[in-house]
């Protein structure tokens, strides 16, 4: 038993990403076609030259036909992927493994979600017949329990913690304001953030990710073929995934100050990539900031800060776009919203732009480091799936 990984065996050679927004005028098909068209052009391939497709959507459609119909794919292997909010990352993981196995030469991962046709705010899970005993809390409420638990364990006062969480929101809005593809493109002051109406627990509106429609896609090939498609391929160093057993919800030992599934996935990813000091080896990280306390504890789960210290690092600006380890330089879920099937691939898209030096100048991070991390989670504290990838510009 082992997680061997596929370090340097597969490369991303083309990517595309729509703007994430309330696309009242665009259907799921429109979003898919826009992201796929940009991606085909980016890699310089036609849809016929792609051998197999993986399509991630949480609840905008079922089966591979949801992708095959709008793109009019003829007789291709097209598989629909769903794995909570990590759906988009999972589509890429499947495509990369298919290429690494030798089964296909060229594979494509597409993620898309049309959230804004439901008529409700927020994300609403597809109902499955049940006995009526499952909890019906919002994700905001489940994640809101992290903040007081963290504060109590590490002796961070209520006001100080509010400042820390506002700093995370402020930073992600700063980054999103500079990103033409973000849903929210305005800077927001910490005063406004702190004064926003409460949603759940102590979380206010500005502690929560937005809700948007969007799509993103990537084309992967064997690493040795990469330079045929682009002179700046992004090599896959690690793809790691951990599904929790759900026992955190019923295990009295779980204290809501960390996400074990994320720590496990990170550890595995670093082993695959050969990373020993993520804080200093990574050029940047895209993490799943669904709510501000989530990003806070992820800094510790991902090894960017020692346990109980991330709040100080946040206040010190460590994770700012101009700081030593930029986190969510694109603005994160906070600024992009969370079209579930697309979010994981949107994170790869930011790594793709930043590592290739193709972000717009005002938001391009300055670094000589060659590695980026993406982290995507789904579910709730205690009952979570987590994905961590590492990608880089150089082999070896």
């Amino acid at each position: 038993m082992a997680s061997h990984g596929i370090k340097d065996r597969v490369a991303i050679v083309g990517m595309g990403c729509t703007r994430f927004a309330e696309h009242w005028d665009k259907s799921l098909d429109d979003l898919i076609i826009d992201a796929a068209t940009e991606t085909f052009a980016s890699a310089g391939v036609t849809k016929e030259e792609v051998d197999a497709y993986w399509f991630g959507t949480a609840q905008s459609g079922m089966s591979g036909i949801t992708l095959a119909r709008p793109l009019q794919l003829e007789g291709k292997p097209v598989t629909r992927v769903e794995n909570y909010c990590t759906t988009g990352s999972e589509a890429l993981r499947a495509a990369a493994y298919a290429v690494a196995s030798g089964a296909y030469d060229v594979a494509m991962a597409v993620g898309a979600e049309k959230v804004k046709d439901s008529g409700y705010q927020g994300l609403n899970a597809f109902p499955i017949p049940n006995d009526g005993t499952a909890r019906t809390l919002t994700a905001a409420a489940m994640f809101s329990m992290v903040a007081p638990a963290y504060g109590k364990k590490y002796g961070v006062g209520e006001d100080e913690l509010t400042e820390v969480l506002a700093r995370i929101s402020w930073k992600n809005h700063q980054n999103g304001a500079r990103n033409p593809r973000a849903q929210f493109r305005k800077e927001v002051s910490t005063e406004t953030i702190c004064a926003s109406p409460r949603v759940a627990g102590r979380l206010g509106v500005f502690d929560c990710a937005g809700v948007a429609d969007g799509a993103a896609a990537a084309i992967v090939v064997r690493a040795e073929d990469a330079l045929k498609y682009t002179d700046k391929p992004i090599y896959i160093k690690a793809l790691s995934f951990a599904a929790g057993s759900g026992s955190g919800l019923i295990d009295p030992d779980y204290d809501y100050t960390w996400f074990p599934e994320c720590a496990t996935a990170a550890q595995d990813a670093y082993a695959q990539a050969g990373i020993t000091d993520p804080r200093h080896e990574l050029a940047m990280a895209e993490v799943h900031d669904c709510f501000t306390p989530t990003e806070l504890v992820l800094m510790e789960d991902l090894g960017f800060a020692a346990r109980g210290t991330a709040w100080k690092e946040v206040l010190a600006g460590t994770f700012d776009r101009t700081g030593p380890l930029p986190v969510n330089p694109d603005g994160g879920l906070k600024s992009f919203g969370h079209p579930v099937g697309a979010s994981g691939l949107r994170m790869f898209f930011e790594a793709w732009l930043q590592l290739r030096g193709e972000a717009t100048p005002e938001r391009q991070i300055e670094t000589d480091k060659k590695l980026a991390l993406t982290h995507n989670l789904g579910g709730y504290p205690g009952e979570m799936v987590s994905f961590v990838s590492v990608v880089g510009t150089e082999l070896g």
Partner: protein
Amino acid sequence: MTRGIVSIAGYVPYRRLQRAEVGKVFASGGGKGARSVASHDEDTTTMGVEAARRALRSAPGAAPGAVWFATATPAYLDKTNATTIHAALHQPADVAAFDFGGALRSGPGALRTALGAPGSGSTLVVVADLRDGLPTSGDESAGGDGAAAVLVGDDGPGTPVVAAYLGGASMTDEFLDRWRTVGDRRSKTWEERFGETRYVPLGTDAWQSGLKVAGVTADEIDRVVVTGMHGRAAKALGRQLGVRDGALGDDLSATVGQTGTAHAALMLASMLEQSGPGEVVAVVSLADGADVLVFRTTPAIAAWSPADPVADQVAAGADLPYGKFLTWRGMVTTEPARRPEPQRVSSSAAWRNESWKFGFVGSEDRTSGAVHLPPARVSMSGGVVDDMVPVDRSDAEATIATYTIDRLAYSPSPPIVFAILDFDGGGRFPVELTDVDPDTVEIGDRVRMTFRKLFTADGIHDYFWKATPVRHAAGDAATAG
């Protein structure tokens, strides 16, 4: 063979409506004092469960042969509501469950029927009611919500009778004083004075007849309460009973209100909780006639310890704004949370998980001792498969490990207060709190489980458990000690 009451308990919901609040809104209606109000997540079935749990808790070792449920405001028609109570009480399949439906008199009727059948085994008689009327009506103010449960049985080792049934009487007459047709939102009444002319003589006759059957005289009565929705008739009859000064007890109309089908048994519970051995206790109920029940408490009552006395529950209540009352009763519709409404519960899934859903029974891994709520086949600790024993946490107290307040999620009465509970004896479960002021919740607070209705969809009530603060008689929420 001595037959009587083995255990008895009342249930008065936590919320109170101060009657004066009605007048403040409508410039009419209301009155003095307060009435009890069932929470938005309670109905007659859940209140019946709460009363029955309390009665059984004070009679360890009791094994009723049947569960009877009587109410004038059933949660379901056609479907038996007593089966839900049966499931929540973990009763085995060979215990019968029957509803006595419709009329206010079905409560005292069920109780008298159970008492009058010596040698028939023990029967748990559960009664409950939700009383209201249109805003400003007399019924809205005079009514109350509540339940009672009476474990009736023959005196025996381990399950001694605490109040021996001396006898009773019933008088019946066909006249229209109060009525409600199926689907009507409110009851209607005839001119009050007519009912009084019928009830007082019927009550007097039943009283005399009941005393004779019981072999006691009026001046031997230590405690008696006259109940009935016709308050004027009940008061008039009370003055004519011929009992000693001080024997006629408080009918709780000033603090709880008339709980209809439940009230006679609720009064009986209240009186017996205050009685010592050798007291003669009677209750008179006026509903389409009159019913009288007479008891003498036994020496066993000295050792009987009520789990949650009615007086304590009455004292522990907290006020509810009149607007909330109207909303909870469906008299006013307020803007719902902008979230999808829940889907109906799957009948087959609910049936498979009956002991969990209705009984709050989880499982314990015999090897590691890890408690699983809900029950599991594969252990979260060590991975043992199919080696678990059932573990009942419905009566366990728990401590709040952490909590949150959800202002977005769907609820019939937002916001949802939600807590992670660690149970005494092991086990953790995240669950909704109820009968709680969101601003008072603290980590470390002590709570206990209560049977509630989460929502109703497609006419199906979703019954499950919530947690409520452990309260002392003074009404303060307890903290972890």
